[in-house]
């Protein structure tokens, strides 16, 4: 699996702290929803810094894909991507990586994401919507405030439950609070669960999902470390 030279074709401010980078490659990445890529930065003297970022889009006819990256204070790679990278720049990527936290759009799933953990789940939701399989997917997204919600103009829909832990939009009925059992929507029997977020979120969400009846062995977890 070799390094590929991607070109930045679009940069969108996703939230105050996150940007979505649309990249294009000479050949399609050929990834599965949920996979990630490695981004490598190389200084003129050969020094490199690499980080993993989840792909936010499913594979399609284009050779393009999107990464949504949160800017971490002091993060060597995320700060560079946010502060320096511009449309037209080249970026080395490698992937797709990971054969576990993937969904191919053919079985019922319950997706639970906390904060930036929504990124690989968004690839799955987008795949479901594109292929007319929305009925297979239920997604629960937990964020602190409305301003922290990624894909805010797209993510809402019949598949989606939004949970705000600190502050809600003005019209929102549910008061702010942590994800609880009441937030888990009805899901299809036999569904697998995909949980992505910080370690603390993943632990709490795992307990809720087990409580909701998903067997432990049908739960796949991706925990985000502080990868700067």
């Amino acid at each position, binding site marked *: *699996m070799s*390094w590929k*030279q991607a070109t930045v074709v679009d940069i969108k401010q996703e939230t105050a702290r996150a940007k979505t980078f649309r990249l294009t490659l000479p050949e399609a990445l050929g990834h599965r929803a949920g996979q990630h890529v490695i981004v*490598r*930065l*190389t*200084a*003129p003297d*050969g*020094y*490199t*810094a*690499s*980080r*993993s970022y989840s792909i936010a889009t499913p594979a399609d006819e284009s050779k393009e894909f999107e990464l949504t990256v949160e800017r971490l204070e002091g993060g*060597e790679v995320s700060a*560079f991507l946010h502060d*320096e*990278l511009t449309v037209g*720049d*080249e*970026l*080395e990527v*490698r992937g797709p*990586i*990971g*054969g*576990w*936290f993937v969904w191919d759009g053919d079985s019922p799933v319950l997706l639970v994401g906390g904060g930036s953990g929504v990124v690989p789940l968004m690839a799955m939701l987008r795949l479901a919507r594109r292929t007319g399989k929305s009925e297979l997917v239920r997604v629960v997204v937990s964020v602190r405030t409305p301003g922290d919600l990624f894909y805010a103009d797209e993510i809402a829909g019949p598949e989606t439950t939004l949970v705000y832990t600190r502050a809600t939009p003005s019209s929102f009925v549910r008061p702010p609070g942590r994800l609880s059992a009441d937030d888990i929507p009805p899901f299809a029997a036999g569904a697998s669960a995909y949980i992505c977020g910080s*370690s603390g979120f993943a*632990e709490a969400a*795992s307990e809720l999902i*087990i409580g909701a009846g998903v067997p*432990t*062995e049908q*739960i*796949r*977890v*991706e*925990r985000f*470390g*502080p*990868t*700067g």
Partner: protein
Amino acid sequence: MSRFTRGFSGRGRANRDPRLPPGQYDTGNSWPVLTAEVTPRLDTATWTFRIEGLVDRPTTWTWDEIHALPPSSYSGDIHCVTTWSKLGVTFNGVSVDTLLDAAGVQPSATHVLAFSHTAYTTNLPLADVTNGKAWVVWDYEGRPLEAQHGGPARLLVPHLYFWKSAKFVAGLRVLDHDEPGFWEQNGYHDRGDPWLEQRYQGD
């Protein structure tokens, strides 16, 4: 040789710690948790560790029995494939040599498959878990190993990327062939030497 990235100079590299393998950064006091499964809550009252497969005496130890073996510790560095390293850490437990010697490894053995109390597995050449290179540990910096880090006990193979150090380890199956484990079936390198950057298949 990679092409350089416009505008990137890198930071902190003048002070780069020589203990860091290529492509790794020092995570400092934090210890990221990257587990692909639900964290199990294992009770040490019923916990076991087993050596099986190509051994003369397949052996199962209870929590108390494994603690009665000669203690062994590791002080040094650990390296995760997701590019963080944690420097100067200390774990206490028992050497895998002690466990394998008790079971009596047969001459035809070449590899082990470590298996966990979850469905997790990871494969290792026998040479990577013998001669003082691997431990089963239950103590981190003088305190019980937390469940999120693989407690009550995990495998520790610190000279390889940390996915080889199976959390919630339940035993080693001694084999006369290589048998890819969980991540090795999912795109990761078979051996995982951080100094050779053996991260993914084909590295």
